[in-house]
């Protein structure tokens, strides 16, 4: 819910401050269509756009404590605010509103930064302490809610989305070239870097204090796989999982408005929908994407769940034309180049939710990270199995089993399967071992970088930088836990929860809630032995067993179907002016990021060839989205050999 923005520092007249805050607020008006508020104080300004979900009548922001010392602008939800409020009241705190916002203020006044350990929720907020002339900012553990910041002329500015920071006079939109390299290798920038040079994100699970013109940033939580509990029997683990997931769902249904649920037909969203239906006797609206292409469509499973649960189900069909029609808006909201079209159907889905009068939805996102559901986890296990007998002609056939939807693998011989998955070349003690094939194939897209860009990037390695950020304990963890950490710490907040999550939902003022990302559940699952989560090649084993009685057998036993959408063919099936423009020589020369000859050849190949592999698809979407990003945010900035300036 909501959008926040503000500044800290001197030099603005009250009228200038008022105008700046209004401009920043307007840029993110889509995040909070219900109300808007600003506060201008001594060397501080706070702005808030409200999507009213809890405390409808008295939750206006920015909100201050009774003595006026602390003032907050807050985006998100504290799901355990009722329990926290009771605790605070028992210690003498008196509340003036029914909102969760006021709970944060009281908790912070008592505990300072340590208050974050008490919060169970998705949040990004800033609290100004007038006594100490200090601004405290924080972001939730998993990175559900966004928070960006930049310094300009000695003043600190922050906002839920970067487009608000671009309204600050003098702040320019310039592509961060290392971020581009990271996106074209890892799918997302490594925090705190963003696609915008000089604009940072506050990483998930971090807080920040700004005072006296300087900032101090600190991590307050991390995923920890060092304390595995091998003694606990499986039935206890199942009971604990079931109980935590039920409670995580229960508190995420807290709202003064109706909460709906996403329902793809997969295991995770089906579990959440089933739990929510049981807890919402008045009825539950569910929402799903369908595809006309059977390779991506899950409507059969969706309908089975709808029949079983009796939800009021709404669907939006996404064929190639629909994806192409919204893609420029998707990039405008995502605020970074992307290599996949996956966000586009979710942009359309949140529009559908809004049209039905729903403001908040539950989502099954996060289960694949927390309970080991992704194919890449199974792939890494098979790769290690094959590496023990590199010449085996039988073991590589297992790759076909985990990728039945990849037609290209069907004709491949075992030798080639082994070669594609790096059986003989990848080092087993590489901390990024689980992700090496994906990193390699993704980085292949950099073939299309212009010569000038490649020269500037020189031998920079995004993968090496990623490896350097890993905690000391990482090397001692089980290989599955290493892979889970990489997915959960980086791709989840950097892509899934942002480009596919918050940004697509908030484009239409929809708040998404993720029971699987309740920190109690995440911490419990991290203590579960690896083989209990991924049993052989059976993904999410513990979750399936724990929730078996909740959903129909056919859904409970469904193999994982990754969420996919049409890629390059979404843009080449029918001619689109903006796509042709993006790949025109003049446009490519103007941005200077991509090799003109190769990019135009790729465009031609994508239109004419029957073969578009992973690299070419990703490169096509990456080039198109980067060109759109440049047009929308940085058109005036022309890059040449002389102007390329990478800060490595």
């Amino acid at each position, binding site marked *: 819910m909501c959008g926040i923005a503000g500044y800290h520092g001197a030099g603005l007249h009250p009228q200038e401050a008022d105008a700046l805050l209004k401009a920043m607020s307007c840029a993110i008006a889509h995040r909070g269509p219900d109300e808007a508020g600003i506060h201008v104080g001594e060397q501080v300004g706070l702005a808030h756009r409200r999507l009213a979900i809890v405390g409808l009548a008295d939750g206006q922001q920015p909100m201050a404590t009774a003595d006026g010392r602390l003032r907050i602008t807050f985006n998100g939800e504290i799901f355990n605010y009722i329990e926290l409020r009771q605790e605070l009241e028992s210690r003498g705190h008196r509340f003036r509103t029914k909102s969760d916002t006021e709970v944060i203020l009281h908790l912070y006044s008592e505990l300072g930064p340590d208050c974050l350990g008490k919060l169970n929720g998705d949040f990004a907020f800033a609290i100004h302490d007038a006594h100490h002339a200090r601004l405290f900012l924080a972001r939730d553990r998993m990175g559900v809610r966004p928070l960006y910041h930049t310094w300009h002329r000695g003043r600190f500015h922050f906002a839920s989305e970067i487009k608000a920071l671009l309204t600050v006079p003098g702040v320019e939109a310039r592509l961060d070239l290392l971020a581009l390299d990271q996106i074209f290798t890892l799918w997302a920038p490594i925090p705190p870097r963003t696609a915008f040079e000089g604009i940072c994100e506050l990483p998930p699970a971090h807080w920040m204090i700004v005072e006296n013109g300087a900032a101090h940033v600190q991590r307050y939580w991390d995923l920890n796989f060092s304390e595995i509990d091998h003694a606990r029997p499986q039935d206890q683990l199942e009971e604990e999982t079931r109980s935590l997931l039920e409670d995580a769902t229960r508190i995420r249904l807290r709202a003064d408005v109706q909460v709906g649920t996403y329902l793809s037909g997969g295991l995770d969203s089906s579990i959440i929908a089933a739990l929510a239906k049981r807890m919402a006797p008045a009825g539950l609206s569910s929402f799903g994407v369908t595809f006309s292409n059977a390779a991506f469509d899950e409507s059969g499973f969706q309908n089975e769940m709808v029949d079983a649960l009796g939800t009021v189900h709404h669907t939006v069909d996404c064929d190639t034309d629909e994806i192409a029609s919204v893609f420029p808006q998707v990039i405008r909201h995502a605020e970074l180049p992307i290599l996949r079209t996956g966000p586009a159907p979710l942009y359309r889905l949140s529009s559908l939710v809004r049209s039905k009068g729903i403001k908040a939805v539950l989502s099954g996102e996060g289960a694949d990270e927390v309970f080991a559901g992704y194919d890449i986890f199974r792939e890494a296990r098979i790769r290690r199995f094959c590496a023990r007998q590199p010449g085996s002609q039988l073991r590589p056939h297992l790759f076909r089993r985990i990728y039945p939807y*990849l037609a*290209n*693998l069907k*004709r*491949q*011989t075992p*030798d*080639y399967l082994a*070669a*594609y998955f790096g059986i003989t*070349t990848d080092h087993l003690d590489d901390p990024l071992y689980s992700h090496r094939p994906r990193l*390699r*194939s993704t*980085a*292949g897209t950099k*073939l*299309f970088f212009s010569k000038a860009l490649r020269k500037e990037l020189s031998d920079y390695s995004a993968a090496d930088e990623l490896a350097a950020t890993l905690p000391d304990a990482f090397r001692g963890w089980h290989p599955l836990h290493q892979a889970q950490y990489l997915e959960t710490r980086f791709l989840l907040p950097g892509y899934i929860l942002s480009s596919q999550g918050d940004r697509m939902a908030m484009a239409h003022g929809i708040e998404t809630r993720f029971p699987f990302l309740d920190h109690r559940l995440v911490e419990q699952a991290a203590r579960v032995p690896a083989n209990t989560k991924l049993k052989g090649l059976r993904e999410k084993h513990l979750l399936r067993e724990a929730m078996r009685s909740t959903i129909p057998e056919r859904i409970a036993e469904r193999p994982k179907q990754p969420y996919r959408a049409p890629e390059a063919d979404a843009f080449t099936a029918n001619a689109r002016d903006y796509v042709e423009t993006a790949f025109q020589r003049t446009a490519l020369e103007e941005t200077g990021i991509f*090799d003109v*000859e*190769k*990019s135009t*050849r*790729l465009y031609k*190949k994508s239109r004419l*060839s*029957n*073969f*578009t*592999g*992973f*690299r*070419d698809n990703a490169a096509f979407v990456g080039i198109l989205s980067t060109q759109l990003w440049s047009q929308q945010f940085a058109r005036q900035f022309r890059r040449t050999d002389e102007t390329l300036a990478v800060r490595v």
Partner: protein
Amino acid sequence: MPQQINADIRAFVVDNFLFGDESEAPADDASLIESDIVDSTGILEMVSFLEEHFLVEVADPEIVPENFDTIARLTAFVAGKRNAKAAAGT
């Protein structure tokens, strides 16, 4: 003949996988997979090219690195196929 086969295969690799970038062209004995030039789709593109351009048939069991992983091996594979075809025809 092998020189022409080699030149045609090299031209296809540069044109189709490297999008015209001669500077990235692999040596004759460089692995196309380890150089990240072809992936699982790329191999099928190569099979399609060999069948259509050189009029040879490629059976699934022949799609192995011994035949496909370098330009030199591809050249030898096609030359062998053509020789066998010529011998069968005489």
